């Protein structure tokens, strides 16, 4: 194939070029490997790099494309997996000493589906230990750092995926999200991160944190790329008891349709008074709403229970279910955890059975409340993070409980939600806002997000580190 400079392509653009045989999957993979070699010592996004395997997959993809044409937009595209997605024959560590030697004998469903779509798996990506404890400096691997400024926090728990996508080391990646673990790193790393509806994407083969809150989903540079990945991932899986029996729409077919008349409800009190975001974030969200208004959306305020209520129910459930998952190891080999994971999740031992059921009763009330709010709104908008990324060495141990999450409400309800970049703050770091839709309305959610991205120029900028290497 003829080689073109594949610098910072989106999945959509790379797929167009690969399909037209203007871009070689092997060259694209080599470009990503070169970038990983150059940048990862500074960013620590990868726990394990499977370079030779990736090149072999890329060569296979290239042969298939030359012989029979591309089988779809992920054919030959380099991706990465958060290291809680099981990979047959490749270590899956959860970024924990507990699983340092764990090599699964089967793939997660998501791993299988992305491979079946022809993607090239570059390696396993860093996370907060077991998707809850981080950033930790006492684990066998260092924490991932934010490529926009390596002194800054990339958020988590899908920290490596957010960092790797932002730095162009992969074109897309997988994250998991129990209380914001896709959307938070997407926000601070300036990428798009989609938490699909609970049950939309199989969790089979993904190491759990809290069963009733866990979601898995794509992270990529754009909403369009998330749509492409979701297309490969979505669909019923009998091996996941929460998997939905629902048809899978064409997520890319209607991306470019107008959003005229779409009703957007803004949960302004979440980010203006319940937990006020930075002035720059507030300004950026208001500007984003203006853009959506200009595109024909109808924007109005929506009021829900205070943000703390959603977090109380969500984190009680998370602590209880998470503690149950880790109970045996907490008793028998607590020293094999990092301090943050161990001490945070051990608090789950203090939650009573009645507390858990009351949290689940509150959860139902909150679900009914959000459902009612969406009778007059097609999309809900809130903040995704409070501001620009803080310093990575200044994250309090109990931050999870001290600062309410803007993301958790949509884990409590299971509604699909996405974090989208909406500008840059005074330090040049990304800002983001969050959009959510009714269950299984990812197509609309992605269409509105795509319309916003197309109407703004935020997707042009990449981390300076990735564009201009040091030295």
């Amino acid at each position, binding site marked *: 194939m003829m080689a073109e400079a594949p610098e910072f392509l989106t999945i959509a653009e790379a797929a167009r070029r690969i399909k037209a045989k203007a871009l070689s999957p092997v060259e694209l993979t080599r470009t990503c490997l070169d970038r990983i070699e150059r940048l990862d010592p500074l960013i620590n996004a990868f726990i394990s790099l499977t370079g030779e395997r990736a090149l072999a997959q890329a060569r296979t993809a290239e042969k298939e494309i030359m012989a029979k044409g591309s089988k779809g937009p992920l054919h030959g595209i380099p991706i990465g997996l958060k290291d809680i997605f099981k990979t047959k024959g490749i270590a899956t560590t959860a970024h924990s000493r507990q699983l340092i030697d764990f090599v699964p004998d089967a793939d997660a469903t998501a791993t299988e589906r992305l491979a079946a779509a022809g993607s090239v798996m570059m390696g396993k990506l860093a996370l907060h230990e077991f998707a809850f404890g981080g950033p930790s400096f006492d684990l066998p691997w260092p924490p991932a750092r934010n490529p926009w400024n390596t002194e800054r926090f990339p958020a988590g728990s899908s920290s490596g995926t957010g960092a790797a996508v932002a730095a162009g080391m992969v074109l897309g990646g997988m994250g998991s999200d129990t209380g914001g673990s896709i959307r938070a790193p997407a926000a601070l790393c300036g990428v798009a991160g989609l938490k699909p509806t609970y049950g939309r994407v199989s969790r089979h083969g993904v190491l759990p944190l809290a069963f009733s809150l866990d979601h898995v989903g794509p992270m990529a540079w754009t909403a369009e790329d998330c749509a492409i990945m979701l297309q490969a991932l979505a669909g019923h899986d009998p091996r996941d*008891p929460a998997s939905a029996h629902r048809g899978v729409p064409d997520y890319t077919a209607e991306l470019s349709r107008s959003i005229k008349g779409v009703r957007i409800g803004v949960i302004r009190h979440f980010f203006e008074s319940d937990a006020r975001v930075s002035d720059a974030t507030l300004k950026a969200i208001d500007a984003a709403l203006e853009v959506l208004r200009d595109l024909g959306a109808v924007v109005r305020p929506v009021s829900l229970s205070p943000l703390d209520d959603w977090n109380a129910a969500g984190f009680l459930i998370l602590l209880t279910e998470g503690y149950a998952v880790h109970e045996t190891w907490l008793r028998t080999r607590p020293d094999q955890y990092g301090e943050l994971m161990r001490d945070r999740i051990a608090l789950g031992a203090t939650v009573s059975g009645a507390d858990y059921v009351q949290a*689940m*009763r509150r959860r139902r009330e909150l679900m009914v409340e959000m459902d009612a709010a969406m009778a007059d709104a097609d999309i809900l908008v809130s903040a995704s993070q409070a501001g620009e990324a803080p310093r990575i060495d200044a994250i309090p141990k109990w931050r999870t*409980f001290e600062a309410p999450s803007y993301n958790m409400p949509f884990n409590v309800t299971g509604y699909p939600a996405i974090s989208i970049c909406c500008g840059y703050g005074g330090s040049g770091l990304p800002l983001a806002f969050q959009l959510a839709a009714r269950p299984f309305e990812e197509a609309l959610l992605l269409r509105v997000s795509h319309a916003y991205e197309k109407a703004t120029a935020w997707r042009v900028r990449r981390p300076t580190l990735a564009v201009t290497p040091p030295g």
Partner: protein
Amino acid sequence: MPPKPSITEDDFACLMRRAGLTFGAAQLAEMYGAYAYVEQMAASVRRQRTIDSEPAQVFVVTKEAE
């Protein structure tokens, strides 16, 4: 940090021991402080509701479970 937990540090240590968890004194003291968040959350989800108010984890019987 939220206000001090309603139980004593000894009571908290007892909860941990009952769960079979072993921690050093300094670690327990730090976790005891954070336990106030758990109490706050547990209080928040307790509302006046009817006796038949259903939780979210009720389920529909599927073929798998029949």
